[in-house]
């Protein structure tokens, strides 16, 4: 590897808006302005080489948008994303750098083209980047990749529908690895799988990370999965990262009221029979977010300041938290 930096991917103040306005004519007739959905709001993070940054949050909190921003499927509306020290759009225009990032998707039934044989699916990045030229070399490499993810080399002859969800996700991983990347974005890679299969896929991903020195951006809504995978953990709420720090630290000592609420909700054998605080309320609409702290309508600690002023990220120990209550010391209860 020629250019290696300690930080593989760095996002600074990234915001992404989506235009959700109605068609022009209807808008003019009703006299309505353009409307934007703020899917990702002022998100910053850095992922050091060989580590996993996990993002958790409820549905619609902007996790998947972050994943797509990180591989350049979407451009940021404002803010800056750098890959290997270069601006992401510049990095993506060079095949040599683009090759080094890839993505694993959520739905193993939609992420493989049903009309393609598995060997062509896995070989697609190899062909796209012209990594190998002869058909024999490509075949050999595809066989090697399939074996690496726990399938047989002969499976390359089959079509995706002949495999189970877990096997398909292995194919998806083999495809992602075939361009020999060092950065993988995993957008809920196990949420469509059975629990027993989830563990297999996660262990495979951890093993590959150690063997190949991969860097992961890991998106999930499943806290148990995240605890297993994350070196650093970011908790997202309504497009913002409300708490970010080393994974174990966040789990053992959650500071933000939202993180606490999520962790309280995890089923736990020790807690059988103990009354729990339910995760109440709905996530507000990102088209029309509440003023101040986006979490205040659901927060027990919210006061007048929370309803008006957006909290900034503040370092507390190893963790960064965006919460007035934590800063003011009101959170310790």
């Amino acid at each position, binding site marked *: 590897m020629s250019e290696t930096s300690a930080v593989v991917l760095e996002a600074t103040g990234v915001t992404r808006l989506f235009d959700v306005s109605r068609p022009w004519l209807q808008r003019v007739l009703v006299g309505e302005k353009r409307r934007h959905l703020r899917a990702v709001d002022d998100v910053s993070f850095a992922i050091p080489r060989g580590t996993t940054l996990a993002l958790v949050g409820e549905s619609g909190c902007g996790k998947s948008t972050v994943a797509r921003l990180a591989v350049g499927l979407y451009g940021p509306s404002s803010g800056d994303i750098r890959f290997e020290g270069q601006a992401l759009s510049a990095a993506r225009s060079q095949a040599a750098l683009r*090759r080094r990032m890839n993505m694993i998707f959520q739905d193993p039934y939609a992420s493989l083209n049903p009309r393609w044989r598995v060997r062509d699916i896995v070989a697609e990045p190899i062909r796209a980047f012209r990594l190998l030229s002869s058909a024999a070399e490509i075949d050999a490499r595809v066989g090697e990749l399939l074996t690496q993810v726990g399938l047989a080399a002969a499976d390359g002859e089959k079509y995706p529908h002949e495999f189970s969800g877990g096997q398909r996700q292995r194919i998806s991983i083999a495809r992602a690895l075939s361009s020999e990347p060092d950065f993988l974005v995993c957008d809920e890679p196990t949420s469509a799988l059975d629990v027993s299969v989830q563990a297999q896929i996660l262990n495979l991903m951890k093993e590959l990370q150690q063997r190949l020195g991969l860097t992961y951006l890991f998106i999930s809504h499943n806290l148990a999965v995240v605890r297993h995978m994350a070196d650093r953990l970011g908790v997202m709420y309504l497009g913002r990262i409300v708490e970010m720090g080393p994974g174990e630290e966040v789990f053992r000592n959650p500071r933000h009221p939202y993180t606490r609420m999520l962790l309280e909700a995890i089923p736990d054998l020790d807690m059988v029979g103990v009354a729990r605080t339910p995760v109440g309320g709905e996530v507000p609409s990102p088209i029309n977010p509440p003023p101040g702290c986006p979490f205040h309508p659901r927060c027990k600690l919210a006061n007048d300041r929370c309803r008006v002023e957006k909290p900034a990220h503040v370092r507390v120990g190893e963790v960064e938290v965006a919460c007035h209550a934590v800063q003011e010391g009101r959170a310790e209860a």
Partner: protein
Amino acid sequence: MLARFLDSDFVYSFRRSPVAVVSTLVVLACVVGAVGAPWLAPHNPFDLASLSLMDSLQPPVFMADGTAAHLLGTDDQGRDVLSAIMYGTQISLMIGFLAIIFALVVGITVGLVAGYMGGAVDALLMRVTDVQLTFPSILIALLVDGVARAVLPRDFHDRMQIYVLVFAIGIARWPQFARTVRGSTLVERGREYVMAAKVIGLSSPRIMASHILPNVLGPVLVIATLNLGLAILDEATLSFLGVGLPPTQPSLGTLIRIGNDFLFSGEWWVTIFPGVMLAVMVLSINLLGDWLRDALNPRLR
């Protein structure tokens, strides 16, 4: 590969459907008779030397004056009706096929680009399609034919008439394909396998051609089959109206028009037999298309 195909649901449902089997056999017979006309037809209706006015307007073989030499009788020029039908079917089928292929190429391209690109490109292409759909196809075909007649020199026009018809029918039929392909493309382009291709930086034309196209072809082929029958009818209609093929190069429609003049003087066979042929062929193609639509629809399995 072949064994696997013969074992598939598709072949199973084909065998279970007598309508599909019969209509396939009829269509195959039409195609064989049409393509093999130069070798299979008892006479060559284009060979002026072999025509004799003495043979004109002979009735079919099962009537009192019929002869075995002309099984379905002869027309006013003494041309063998059976042979003329075989040659005519050849021309009709060829125009139908070429017109549908032309419509497919235009429709699939427009549909893919509109569906994949979205936005202003999509809006523009779809408005063009909508406008085109408001005209009856036969009207567009008449218009194209009229323009071609006015623009091209006469003898050149006669030679090019087949291609003018192909263009006229094809241009009238592409919007259906464009709409269907656009609809399927809108579904496919949001799938994660398309995103996977974008992540590795494949170009849009390449994604459209290698990823989306194979996944949107199914429904289009069903419509293409149904439209093949309609395209053959379009051609017959145009030829019947006299703006199609000249009598020197008769398609089924031309034969029906020529025979129409003799219907009331009792020589019904000159027009009825090509008419029956046309009806049977188009009906079989449509039945086949109907079956194909059901067979490829997973919800009806």
